């Protein structure tokens, strides 16, 4: 798996930490929407929009990866 960092280009997966599914944070305080955002997951077998932290430079990368094959469909933002 190789992921694209906007600052450093395409780098090895070892340099990245998976930060979770890329979800829209709801406004407001605790309630059904916030509960769903924090805990409930679609958990797809297929394309998953997700966040990767590039540990050396600190960039947060949004990528789309197929969870059945590990193929990077959208490997992150181009530099």
């Amino acid at each position, binding site marked *: *798996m190789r992921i694209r960092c906007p600052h450093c280009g395409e780098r090895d*997966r*070892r340099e990245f*930490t*998976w*930060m*979770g*599914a890329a979800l829209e944070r709801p406004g407001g305080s605790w309630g*059904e929407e916030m*509960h*769903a955002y*924090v*805990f*409930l*997951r*679609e*958990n*797809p*077998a297929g394309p*998953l929009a*997700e966040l990767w932290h590039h540990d050396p430079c600190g960039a947060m990368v949004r990528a789309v*990866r197929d*969870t*059945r*094959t*590990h193929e990077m469909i959208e490997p992150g933002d181009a530099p």
Partner: protein
Amino acid sequence: MRYSAFQIAKQALGLGNGWQPVWREPDPKPAYDIVIIGGGGHGLATAYYLAKNHGLTNVAVLEKGYIGSGNIGRNTTMVRANYYLPGNSEFYSHSLKLWESMESELNYNVMHSQRGLINLFHSDGQRDAMARRGNAMRNQGDDAELLTKSQLRRMIPYLDYDQTRFPIHGGLLHRRGGTARHDAVAWGYARGADRRGVDLIQNCEVTGIDIEDGRVTGVQTTRGAIRAGKVAMIAAGRSGRVAELAGMRLPIESHVLQAYVTEGLKPAINHVISYGMGHFYICQSDKGGLVFGGDLDFYPSYAQRGNLPGVEQVMEAGMTLMPMIGRAKVLRQWGGVMDMSPDGSPIIDRTDVDGLYVNCGWNYGGFKAVPASGWATAHLMATGSPHETAARFRLNRFRDGVGVMDEEGKGAQHNLH
């Protein structure tokens, strides 16, 4: 057919031609009282205890593949009851007691081997934590012994005790912990359930869950529609996919966990050894292969295989702990799909849909839970109230924040366990 030494002798005289298939292969009936989605260890145990403890035999277990094709046939076979928190503690204690009577109960050899499990500690702080855990285990009625470094060295001399990075200060020994033959557990429960009248239906994937007026009425499958009064979703790593059929989202992410087996070696490792610093654990199978594993890869995956960084991390941990295994050749490696919950503890509960139940969130510890999980799920479905050992495994604990069970103290958040 009842298995016994006499039976083996009798069948030998018949040149082995008298052995019968262990379970029937029925076609699905149009309706059942209870349908269980998932023919893994937990689903089969649930079916068995529904029939045995509650007399409910109009039950079908629907399995997408074949019996034993999921995590029940793909794990590292540890059985233990060394949990600390209320909720987990009584549940796994109950489970271990069921393991200890499982072979006579099922009339099936599951090769349960209570060879002892040792959790190593590497600092004064960890020693205190282990002593506290050991006391919690003893309070629960299970066994635990705190071993000093010299006691441990007499038992297992081959560890690298005086390494500079993580020197070994001692270990917590759980003598009743050990291993079992994983496939045999699935086969034993399958045979027991089948003999009591449960239909085990293989190659039958559930493609829809029928809900009318907030009540479950049946399932759609690749082998036709089946009506049901109650339905249980017991799909481990696929739980999120199955729940979507009912329009639900679960607090579950499916992650990949890798495991490894070496070539067969002469007996060397007598216990299960768990190395806390590297999240590495190892035992030796009865065939002689060293069976070991470590952490998740830490990204969601249904691929049933991991990547090399995970392999590297586990191999490094193993070499740090016991350099003697460095020349053993790894024979095979595989990855399983783990249903990870935010707090690392499982869920056995009803859902917002009447008659629809869920059993999931076993993280990487589902194997040892199989008997108690089946017992508790059967109790919940038959009586309508949770079993006393599993009352805290609530689905809604993340919504209301009550009774979150974070055994590792990392925080109830996805991707931390």
